[in-house]
């Protein structure tokens, strides 16, 4: 018991609030980050269960488990939950935890708004899932028009729950917008002295750019669903041909949001990989500045390619050509990033702990998804791929084998920093191998059935598609259940009973301000900003 007051001990005033209030009223970026991550993991299991219902029905030709109407509700909610309830919140959770620490800031710029950003989500998804519960109880269909909710199926022909869906989307949108504003303000204003923009970790850069994408396009989505709301309830005809409107305009507005949205879901993934690969290769990221420029180019290009989702709507040739060329161009900066990661690995001194396994896997499988994306960009070929399982394969490769894998990688990478305990490496590797084999069994055959002619969003199919669908279903169940290994590992690590303690640096090759803090990172960190040379 020393009488000396130590000035730079962040942790000895570490009085965290307690009880439920700690979480309900939190203004702490670490706690909020934890809540986002736990929420998204829960949603992963919920959305994943829906996927298993879908895959169970698609195991064999014939209808065995659900009516077509319910099947459409499953595909719709699965998509909405995974996009808005898993991938996006998980990345926001990672940002909340890591961005302040990476730039030497004590917290996010607007801690109270941060709280509200999070708590909107359980509300939004509660509403959405309530519509499903009501549907199961026979009170009317939950949203059943696909996560892309095209008009007029969702407007004139939508079930009563559509209006709840619209409200839910508004809440998710507000949450994302506020989160993005917070991130931009934090990055712009709260970097430690000496941390210039070009010294920020790449994860911070990718989130900075992603945040700008969010504030640019989430409001457009809000506009689209508001137009839906007024078309349905207040007599407008934005998307109704009868009143002089145009269903295709819905698609333009939706995809103007929708395309940047998918880059919102992948840029933070790129950031995570750019943190992990240098750490385990013990070598600095190759081409830091071109990584920044490439990410910015991808973000810019993402605004001018939206109609590649609409090649079959009857666009004039000039437009088809423009969108084809612009979409193909995105391959260039994306390729640069892949080459840079490989160059980081090249002549490094690599070890292959679980985060590195997921990161390497990301690079390979995301690239496969990128190649099928290039194939889809080519308009005449797209006429054969559009709305088939080829597209389903493509986007699952980039979002599951891609974005979700980067989130797994990030969790393994940063869990020791968050909890102060090393996760179980053997279980981590087990999770990795079972997931990776099963995920490829699940999604790779979808390329084949798509090329063979199987459309999307159908609950039953002809015998010619049966074999690969069976493989996919088997893969789905194995993949789904193997996530329980991760759940177990996380709980085990958090409790810390029989785990190895983590050091500050955790990983031998880890560099950055976050690794100068003790593990677990103290409740309040960098209350005095560090100086960056």
């Amino acid at each position, binding site marked *: 018991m020393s009488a000396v007051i130590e000035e730079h001990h962040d942790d000895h005033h570490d009085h965290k609030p307690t009880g439920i209030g700690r979480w309900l009223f939190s203004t702490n970026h670490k706690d909020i980050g934890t809540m986002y991550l736990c929420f998204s993991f829960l949603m992963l299991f919920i959305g994943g269960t829906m996927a298993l219902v879908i895959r169970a029905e698609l195991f064999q*030709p*014939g*209808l065995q*488990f659900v009516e*077509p109407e319910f099947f*459409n509700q499953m595909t719709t909610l699965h998509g909405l939950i995974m996009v808005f309830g898993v991938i996006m919140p998980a990345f926001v959770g990672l940002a909340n935890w890591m961005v302040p620490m990476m730039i030497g800031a004590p917290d996010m710029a607007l801690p109270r708004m941060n709280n509200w950003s999070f708590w909107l989500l359980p509300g939004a998804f509660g509403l959405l899932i309530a519509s499903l519960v009501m549907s199961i109880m*026979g009170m009317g269909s939950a949203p059943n028009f696909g996560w892309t909710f*095209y008009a007029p*199926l969702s407007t004139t*022909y939508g079930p009563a729950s559509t209006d709840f869906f619209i409200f839910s989307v508004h809440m998710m949108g507000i949450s994302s917008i506020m989160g993005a504003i917070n991130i931009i303000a934090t990055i712009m204003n709260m970097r430690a002295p000496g941390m210039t923009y070009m010294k920020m970790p790449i994860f911070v850069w990718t989130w900075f750019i992603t945040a700008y994408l969010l504030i640019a396009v989430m409001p457009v989505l809000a506009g689209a669903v508001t137009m839906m709301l007024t078309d349905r309830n207040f007599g407008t005809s934005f998307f109704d*041909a009868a009143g002089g409107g*145009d*269903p*295709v305009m819905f698609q333009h507005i939706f995809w103007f949001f929708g395309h940047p949205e998918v880059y919102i879901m992948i840029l933070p993934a790129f950031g995570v990989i750019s943190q992990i690969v240098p750490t385990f290769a*013990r*070598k600095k990221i*190759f081409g*830091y500045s*071109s990584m920044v420029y490439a990410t910015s180019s991808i973000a810019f290009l993402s605004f001018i390619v939206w109609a590649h989702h609409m090649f*079959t*709507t*009857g666009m*004039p*040739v000039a437009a*088809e*050509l423009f969108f*084809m060329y612009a979409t*193909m161009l995105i*391959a*260039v900066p994306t*390729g640069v990033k892949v080459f840079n990661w*490989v160059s980081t*690995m*090249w*002549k*490094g*001194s*690599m070890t*292959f702990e679980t985060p590195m396994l997921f990161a*390497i896997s990301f*690079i*390979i499988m995301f*690239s*496969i998804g990128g190649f099928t994306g290039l*194939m889809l960009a*080519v*308009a*005449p*070929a797209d006429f*054969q791929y*559009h*709305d088939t399982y080829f597209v389903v394969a493509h986007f699952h490769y980039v979002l599951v084998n891609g974005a979700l894998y980067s989130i797994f990688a990030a969790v393994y990478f940063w869990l020791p920093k968050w909890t102060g305990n090393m996760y179980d490496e053997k279980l981590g590797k087990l999770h990795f191998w079972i997931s990776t084999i099963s995920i490829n069994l699940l999604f*790779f055959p979808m390329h*084949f059935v798509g*090329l063979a002619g199987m*459309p999307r969003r*159908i609950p*039953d*199919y002809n*015998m010619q598609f049966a074999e690969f669908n069976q493989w996919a279903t088997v893969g789905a169940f194995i993949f789904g259940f193997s996530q329980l290994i991760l759940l177990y590992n996380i709980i085990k690590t958090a409790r810390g009973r029989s785990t190895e303690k983590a050091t500050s640096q955790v990983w031998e090759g880890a560099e950055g301000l976050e690794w100068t803090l003790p593990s677990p990172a103290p409740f309040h960190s960098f209350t005095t900003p560090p100086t960056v040379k």
Partner: protein
Amino acid sequence: MRAAIRVAGFISLMLSSGQLLADYQLDMRPGVTSFSQGAYEIHTMVMWISVAIAVVVFGAMTYAIIYHRKSKGHKASSFDDNTTLEIVWTIIPFIILGFMAVPATKVLLEMEDTSNSDMSIKVTGYQWKWHYDYLGEDVSFFSNISTPDSLSLATSANVDRTAETYLLDVDNRMVIPVNKKVRMLFTANDVIHSWWIPDFGVKKDTIPGFINESWIKTDKPGVYRGQCTELCGTNHGFMPIVVEVKSEKDYMAWLAGKKAEAAEAAASAEKTWTMEEQMAHGEKVYATNCAACHQANGQGIPNVFPGLVGSPVAIGDIAKHIDVIINGVPGTAMQAFGGQLNDADIAALVTYERNAWGNDVGDMAQPADIKAAR
């Protein structure tokens, strides 16, 4: 090492797509029109270029994973930049993309030219069937899935799922002549659908209130199947498309047959039908148009679609029964079938519903009654 094996495994799977697993269809079919073949060629080119790039990039990764690892004692280099390399691997992909864009542009421009066609067919997407209208020929008909039992969990097991054309067969095929440029016009009755035949390489959205166009020309007679490819509601997966390409002679014969059928239907509206004739015909009409909701056994789905067994409409006033079928029931899912079914069909349907499943009302409707009620 394991990573290397995994990577090699996947690459060889992709490369051997033709030989290995020959029973399973792994690739797109080239099809029978110049677009489907153009699309196939571009698809193949882009795919193999992608595979080649993947082999190089993943190969380099694999090499690094094997040799540049700490456990092999490899010490990390310190380079973290090389501007020349960055420029090279920005420009080369750009050139490769340009190389792909040229043939893609050619195929696309060819597809858009619908002029100088020999005939036109208007395709209308309905929930959940297609309508074909041969413009200028006075031939038009609906094309429904031939196994309406497929549409519901309760009855799906009645259908033979191993049938080669399971879910891909219809009651009335679209028929076109070989070697003629057929202009297709597309629209929809309700929501957006999409008409696709993989072997033709034609996929076009059908949008309510708007008209789209495309064209087909093939020199290969045969039967070609496709499906609706835009989510359009409950039975999106159950509205297949079947196009039969016949020789010109056979096409003219078919066309004549269709006109004769229409004349016969008009004539049959004049005649008086017997109970047996109506029950038989009515059962067919019911299966195609009504069973999806009211079910083959007439029981409906509780709280969703009313059953017809012992229902007030089916055993009550016949005029009201006829009105419900012709004009539908506003505010409910019971649509107006007056525009889709002819007098003979509706008469048979009314008779069937009033006498099947133990309803046994004993009365029947004649086509003339339906005509009067319209």
